[in-house]
């Protein structure tokens, strides 16, 4: 008699690979043939995952239309058996899958659209953190400002797009007139994060993106100001840096501050 392990191996191959060996182990019912009955499991597997991908990549679906999206989903399911306890993460490889797909070789905006949807979903249920408020910085002694380092919100995700996928996303989401996809003259920096319960994204200027990326690495405020000065001129560099910083705080993109331990300042204590 076949062992439980052998039966489960065959059953799984029957679902994933369409192998009919399992049918020798299951019975016809009085009303239906075994192939139809086993087919309930085969169909359910694909249908369930396709439904999940449709929810996860709603704007990619809207952009591609039903038929092309159905083909994409079918290929993804066939190539990516789930190894996750929750189907929530089944579609996580979709941006890379599209980027590698020959079907979309001339449409880089599709993978970027998927990357934006994935980042928004990840930000939606990512880790909680109390956002930094402007009033928190009142605790910082004025002479300690140069040594300030910031903790970015744990849901923050930086993306850089070669196409106008962010604009496409917005038009699709708002059911606005279709936007023509295009490659941008310069890459577009985006930040995705959660503000309150809402996952959001914001385009960043090249200068702001540079400062954000360095801040996220723990570079202290005085060095951030120097970098901004080097990037686009010393004129009002500190003001520009302070303006970016205030914007991040106003939009809950930061979660805390500390003083750079590499520059001990014995006169300052938190």
């Amino acid at each position, binding site marked *: 008699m076949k062992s439980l392990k052998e*039966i489960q191996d065959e059953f799984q191959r029957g679902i994933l690979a369409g192998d009919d060996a399992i049918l020798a182990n*299951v019975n016809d019912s009085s009303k239906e043939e075994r192939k139809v009955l086993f087919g309930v499991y085969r169909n359910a597997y694909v249908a369930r995952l396709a439904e999940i991908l449709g929810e996860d990549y709603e704007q990619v679906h809207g952009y591609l239309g039903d038929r092309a999206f159905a083909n994409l989903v079918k290929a993804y399911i066939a190539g990516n058996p789930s190894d996750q306890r929750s189907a*929530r993460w089944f579609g996580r490889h979709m941006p890379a899958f599209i980027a590698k797909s020959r079907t979309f070789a001339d449409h880089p905006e599709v993978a970027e659209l998927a990357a934006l949807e994935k980042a928004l979903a990840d930000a939606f249920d990512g880790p909680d953190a109390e956002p930094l408020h402007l009033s928190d910085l009142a605790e910082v002694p004025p002479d300690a400002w140069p040594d300030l380092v910031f903790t970015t919100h744990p849901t923050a995700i930086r993306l850089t797009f070669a196409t106008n996928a962010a604009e496409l996303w917005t038009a699709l989401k708002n059911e606005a007139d279709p936007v023509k996809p295009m490659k941008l003259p310069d890459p577009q920096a985006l930040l995705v994060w959660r503000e309150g319960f809402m996952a959001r994204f914001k385009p960043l200027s090249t200068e702001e993106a540079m400062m954000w990326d360095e801040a996220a690495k723990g570079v202290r405020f005085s060095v951030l100001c120097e970098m901004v000065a080097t990037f686009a001129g010393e004129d009002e560099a500190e003001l520009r840096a302070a303006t970016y910083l205030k914007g991040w705080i106003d939009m809950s993109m930061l979660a805390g501050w500390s003083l750079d331990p590499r520059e001990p300042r014995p006169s300052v204590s938190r």
Partner: protein
Amino acid sequence: MITEKPPYLGFGLGLRPQHYDEILDGNPAIDWFEVISENYMIEGGQPLYMLDRIRERYPIVMHGVSLSIASTAPFDMDYLRALKGLAGRLQPKWISDHLCWTGVHGVNLHDLLPIPYTQEALDHVVDRVNYVQDFLGRRFTIENVSTYVTFAQSEMTEWEFVNELARRTGCWLLFDVNNVYVSAFNHGFSAIDFLQGMPRDQVVQFHVAGHSHEETHIIDTHDHPVCDEVWDFYREAVRYFGPVSTMIERDDNIPPLAELVEELDHARSIAGEVLGGASRLVAAE
């Protein structure tokens, strides 16, 4: 090990995100909520926040879909730790999952797959239930699933299997009224035989749900209102088991909360007719 029988909670619903605001803004006539464990094994954001608020007001039970208790693959220990962590946060009245497997070789098929009812499978599942109970420090609750195939290898009926599993592990049982109805139709057995084969004292919860009829077989889709035949069988279940915490399970085509509350009221009225005042005895939190 917590071995005390969980309390009777009355009439509950599966918690679905569509209803968070209605639940928190109003005071719907719902005694308790069941949450899908995996949906809250996340790091933060709105779902966990809402769940914590609802937990402040209602008793919660946890219901999983990925434990894969009957799989021949090793347990996913990260999953078990996450389950235990969530239980620590929610302090559920009980924790359930299905008598099924969901995959082998590291794959999750995201389905509740059937097993052959053999002595070998029984010994295997008994060991696994015992392991989970030791790990969680409490008795676990096992639910019967809807199935579409039976195996040539089976040596006993499903209810004999479940009964023996319950006897050997002491686990609690979630008696899914709809699943018994569906499997009985699909495989041509008597739902009443299944019912009467259950150990009365170990059943702590009922699921009642809708399904899709495909002429030669029924598929357990949870996307329809509960049909009359399932309500009739629910009546039999209440008659046999007495007051058991009852829940309407809807996972697709989710209607406004008020519609589900109406269905729940129907369950209440059936239990009321069968049991008189006993069904209104809700244990204090």
